[in-house]
């Protein structure tokens, strides 16, 4: 779910529950995302999602008695979502989900046009000049990849929400209980690097990804016995934005981009994929990306992934721009960096309604669907304000990318 600013205190980041981390007051939810609720092991097609909060589009419980979208039979959809006439599934809760963080961030996840279910998942939490965003893409060849991505997004999101970020809003008093509940490896009082305020954020993101990896690895021993044959697995890309400072990390081929006012999109992440590997060895990128093996990933979250070593990076925006996280369902149609940048900017340009970020995210999803929609599509957009004059270190008008390919120490 998405959590917005708590009315009664300045601390507005999510705790994963729908309560303000700082004061315990219930937050208002404006949308649901596909990273909340459904129990590990629950099959969205057969069981009711256990999400008790905001109903998403196509929730199986809400479909009973609807007209069938396939054969148009009146009132024929049963409680489990299947049409009593033609048997077709009327829809799934995760077919299309949106997270609306107003002017701070927005994200949309969509099933696409060729896959029977959405195995992508996302997490978005926003606060004052702060956003935590996670995008995960289930590995289709594993069992219950949709559960893997959901668990990963939720776990990473909650860990990001609980972490003490440098550069974020000051922690108000009275958060001792919350701090005590933090994971043991979380060192809330680590000294900050004022010169490099973004680097510690990246370490937090790295730890959140590792935590997500552990949670996904544990799925193998639960639910469907077939999980032991082919354990649930997924990719992850996560970012924490605090003012102008951005920390990000990833495992697999879900990507983070920086889109400046002009020019090609800057790909912040480097796919853990076969294609990336052969391109690095000198293969023609276009040929490589069209190879059937292009999307075979070389790193993932899952029980068979061994020790998770997320790669992380950090930067501080020197000029305004947008951070975009997405699954390959979008970037595969925009492999050219200039095209990607243009597509995002054009989506933002045409979004003139009251929720421009959400509209832009929807437009990018629509673009991928019109191009074929061969995979699930998830995209998150976070505008990043540039560093103000009072801040140290000089900006060159472009973002300074400080990529750290070391494993973050847990």
């Amino acid at each position, binding site marked *: 779910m998405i959590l917005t600013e708590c009315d009664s205190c300045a601390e507005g980041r999510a705790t994963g529950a729908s309560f303000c981390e700082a004061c315990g007051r219930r937050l208002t939810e404006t949308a649901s995302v596909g990273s909340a609720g459904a129990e590990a092991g629950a099959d969205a097609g057969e069981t009711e999602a256990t999400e008790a909060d905001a109903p998403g589009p196509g929730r199986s419980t809400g479909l009973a008695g609807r007209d069938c979208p396939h054969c148009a039979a009146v009132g024929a959809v049963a409680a489990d979502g299947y049409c009593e006439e033609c048997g077709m599934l009327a829809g799934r809760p995760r077919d299309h989900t949106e997270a609306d963080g107003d002017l701070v961030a927005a994200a949309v996840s969509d099933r696409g046009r*060729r896959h029977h279910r959405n195995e992508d998942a996302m997490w978005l939490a926003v606060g004052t000049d702060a956003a935590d965003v996670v995008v995960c893409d289930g590995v289709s060849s594993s069992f219950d990849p949709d559960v893997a991505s959901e668990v990963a997004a939720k776990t990473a999101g909650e860990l990001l929400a609980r972490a003490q970020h440098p550069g974020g809003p000051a922690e108000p008093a009275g958060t001792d209980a919350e701090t005590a509940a933090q994971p043991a490896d979380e060192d809330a009082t680590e000294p900050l690097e004022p010169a490099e305020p973004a680097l510690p954020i990246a370490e937090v993101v790295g730890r959140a990804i590792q935590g997500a990896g552990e949670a996904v690895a544990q799925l193998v021993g639960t639910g469907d016995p077939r999980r032991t044959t082919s354990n649930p697995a997924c990719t992850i890309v996560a970012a924490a934005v605090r003012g102008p400072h951005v920390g990000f990390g990833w495992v697999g081929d879900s990507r983070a981009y920086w889109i400046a006012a002009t020019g090609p999109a800057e790909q912040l992440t480097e796919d853990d994929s076969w294609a990336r590997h052969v391109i690095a060895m000198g293969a023609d990128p276009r040929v490589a990306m069209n190879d059937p093996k292009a999307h075979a990933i070389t790193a993932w979250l899952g029980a068979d992934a061994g020790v998770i070593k997320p790669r992380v990076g950090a930067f501080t925006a020197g000029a305004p721009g947008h951070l975009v996280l997405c699954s390959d369902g979008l970037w595969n149609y925009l492999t050219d960096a200039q095209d990607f940048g243009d597509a995002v900017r054009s989506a933002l340009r045409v979004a003139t309604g009251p929720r421009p970020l959400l509209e832009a995210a929807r437009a990018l999803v629509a673009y991928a669907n019109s191009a074929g929609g061969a995979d699930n599509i998830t995209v998150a957009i976070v505008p990043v304000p540039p560093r103000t004059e009072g801040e140290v270190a000089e900006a060159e008008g472009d973002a300074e990318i400080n990529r750290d390919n070391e494993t973050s120490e847990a």
Partner: protein
Amino acid sequence: MSYSAEAFQNEYLAMGASEVNAIVTVSSSGGEGGRRSAGATEIIIVDASGSMQAEGRMAAARQAAKAAVNCIDDGVRFAIIAGVSTAQQLFPDPGQLAVASPQSRADALRAIDRLQASGGTAMGAWLLLATQLFDQRPGDIKHAILLTDGDNGERFGYLESVLEQIAGRFVCDCRGVGTNWKVSELRKIATAMLGTVDIVARPEGLTAAFEQMITGAMGKTAADVQLKVWTPVNASVRFVKQVEPQVMDLTGKRVEDGPRAGRYPLGSWGQESRDYHVCIDVPAGKAGDEMLAARVSVVEGDTVHAQSLVRAVWTEDTALSTRINRQVAHYTGQAELAQTIQEGIAAREAGDERTATIKFGRAAQLAHESGNKATEDLLSKVVEIEDAATGTVRLRRKVNAADEMALDTQSTKTVRVGRSQ
């Protein structure tokens, strides 16, 4: 009674594919504290034709019938039919059912002592009399044992017409003693009456066989359980087969239940688990489509005890659509094993040794692959298995008739697949 139904399948279909297969495992914890939800009636039919004199079969049958009577629970209604050229009720008085008690059991044992072998074999008539007696007890769990040692002597087609009339009215387990009876004949009865067929090669084995059948029957706690299969518009059921503990095709036993559903009789149930193979033809969908190919429920009258879903999802991802579901593969193999053995035996009887060798070879291979040790052992008495893995076998010149009949009756017995996948 609490039931569960669980479907095992690979729901992913290649583009254009229209056949959906699933194995549905139905389990029941049995009645509340082992108590029946209905009354129970037991009828023992003993062939008393002249041939039963041979090899001390009549004495063994008397002993077995007595043992069976002693296994009947107090309060269960029962009767004994002596099978000759007509059906004669041996116990209690004609047209009556006795209520089991120490007194009535003692009376029954004395009646069994009067059982003498004389006359012919008229299975249709015996079954009709049993049906008339059972009809007095609607709603009961009804079970019969039929013991014979020879071929049916009624006019051709009569037994079949009787079976058509009484199919599913009670469960009948059939046993043949010796080797002068026809497996195909008893199998016909067992299949129509949802029972089992087996050989008791030596008369001294009868007591144990009878005790086992009655004990099994006494363990049943529900009378008339059915599998209800709902399919969507434009879909049809290709077949419904019980595949464990033995192969039994239920497809032809379908009774329509509304425009989109049919019911298949499962007979009586106790604390047990059985597997069913459901195969549905559906119209092929588009990439990403998901369809409910069947709702499979365990029902008793209007009560739905358990339900499982058989799904179809069309995908362009061959990694998904080519996945083999172990349950489906295993039981498809077990059904083929049963059929191959029966074809091998028929070919051998017809003197077609080449076909028999090919069939038995394939059977040896299937039995070996699926870990069906019991069937493999029986096969090895009929053929010399040189290499089970490749299905290389040689027909034995001399085969004991009882061994071949045992192989025939056992051919439908399956082994359960591991649930690790």
